[in-house]
């Protein structure tokens, strides 16, 4: 699925601005990554830093920072969690976030109140798709994997 060339995965969970996606993992942890919209806005990503494993992150405290040539900012966090690990592939090759944003997770976290409660705050499926498309159209965002 896509909107304005921005890839969308209905099985993932999204914040209401579609900055990040969250994926439920089999062991009860959650992985967090950037949406196609976010990586497009950021442009070529040159550096990623994830909070040290074991660090507790309350809602509002980012799990990671991202730097591109024209944008610096957080991977925002919306639920209480503990950092499990950063994705070694992404830390080594940050442009994976541009070229493969839905496989290139940034951090794996353990939600303090369990995955169901954490994910209850997010949009998924058709509702998420509708909001995702609305943002892409409203802000005239056309996604690109161009990382030159």
């Amino acid at each position, binding site marked *: 699925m896509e909107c304005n060339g921005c890839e969308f995965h209905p099985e993932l969970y999204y914040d209401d601005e579609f900055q990040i996606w969250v994926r439920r993992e089999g062991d009860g942890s959650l992985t967090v990554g950037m949406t196609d919209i976010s990586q497009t806005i950021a442009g070529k990503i040159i550096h990623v*830093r*994830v*909070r*040290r*494993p074991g*660090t507790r992150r309350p809602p509002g*405290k*980012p799990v*990671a*920072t*991202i*730097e591109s040539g*024209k*944008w*610096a*900012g*957080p991977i925002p966090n919306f639920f209480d969690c503990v950092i499990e*690990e*950063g994705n*070694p*592939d992404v*830390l*080594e090759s940050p442009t994976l976030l541009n070229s493969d944003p839905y496989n290139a997770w940034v951090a794996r976290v353990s939600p303090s109140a369990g995955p169901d409660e954490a994910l209850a705050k997010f949009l998924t499926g058709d509702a998420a798709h509708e909001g995702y498309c609305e943002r892409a159209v409203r802000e005239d965002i056309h996604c690109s994997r161009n990382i030159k």
Partner: protein
Amino acid sequence: MAIDPDQYLDNEDASVVMIVTAGPSTPHRCATPFYLASLLASMDAEVNMFFTMEGVRLMQKGVADDLVAMEGGKKIIDFIRDAKRAGAVLHVCQPALPGYRIDGQADLIPEVDHVSRASTLADLIMTCDKVLSF
């Protein structure tokens, strides 16, 4: 693949004051303060940006809308919004406004948090961990 422990982020919380005097006469100096403020705020730093001298003009409606630091680059207003979204607090120096004929009530962009006196800056400087000047 093993991760170098230094790749992880493990800073203590800190407070940073950024004094910005760069303005539209030197556009190439106007993006970096906001970029760095965004990054610091994303690292949990408490960031206060204080615009004084020509820096106040960046907070004047319309000035940053078409200003770029480099040809074809991102507009300064978007750098300002990135910093705000990350959590930076923006102060405009009240005593500097008359020299640029800026009305602190009517002429400032909505991203401004406070029109502040010099004594506010003095307090921020005396109580923060780091001061940066641009």
